[in-house]
């Protein structure tokens, strides 16, 4: 009776290589439109406008500036960037829910 020797199963390696190539493409993609990069941009915007708002408020309170409109413009920018961030989060959540609804 012939005993068939056990061969190593290589198919899982192939699947792993496909996954590696996809990850590699995502990393080298210039200005990649992944949700992560867009979120990073939006978060840095929120931080930056918030810092500018605090700086301008400080300058107005200590009397270094006479321009009252600087602080209102800074607060407008801060609220716009927060609004943008909230909308991005909503869209990302919608996309995620859509994918989860696909089912098994």
């Amino acid at each position, binding site marked *: 009776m012939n005993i068939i020797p056990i061969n190593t199963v290589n198919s899982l390696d192939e699947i792993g290589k496909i996954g590696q190539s996809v990850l590699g493409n995502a990393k080298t993609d210039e200005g990649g439109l992944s949700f992560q990069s867009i979120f990073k941009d939006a978060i840095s915007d929120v931080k930056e406008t918030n810092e500018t708002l605090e700086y301008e408020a400080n300058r107005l309170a200590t009397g270094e500036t006479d321009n009252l409109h600087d602080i209102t413009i800074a607060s407008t920018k801060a609220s*716009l960037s927060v609004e943008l961030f909230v*909308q991005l989060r909503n869209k990302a959540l919608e996309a995620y829910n859509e994918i989860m609804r696909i089912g098994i």
Partner: protein
Amino acid sequence: MAFLNSLNIAGSGLTASRLRMDVISENIANYSTTKTEDGGPYRRKSVVYEAVEDKSFGSILKDRLNGDQTTAGVQVSEIVEDPSDFNYVYNPTHPDADENGYVAMPNVDVTQEMLDMMSVTRVYDMNINALNAMKGMAARALEIGR
């Protein structure tokens, strides 16, 4: 982001208008000033505007990254003095009267200053309208697909 930098243009307009308003109110306040530090009466001042780009490093970097969109604005380049002659008023009892009894009064025309003041307030209002319009456009864009 670039859409936020466009608010700086209106902001520079507001700053320039406020500076001009300061100069106008200084002219009006010194309407009868016959003695200044350099001697002689007060000379009427006016501002000169120039159009500039935003020169901060962050904004120039953002413009180059976003593909050659330049943010503009206005800036006061200098405050010049009006070279026209003073008004001579006959008032021999004034402490600054010269030997003929004439006092040199500043070359400030209050009517002209009032007209300038009205136009400056209108320009300030228009800048604020432009700023609100830009903010409204950005807010509407964020409602796409809501």
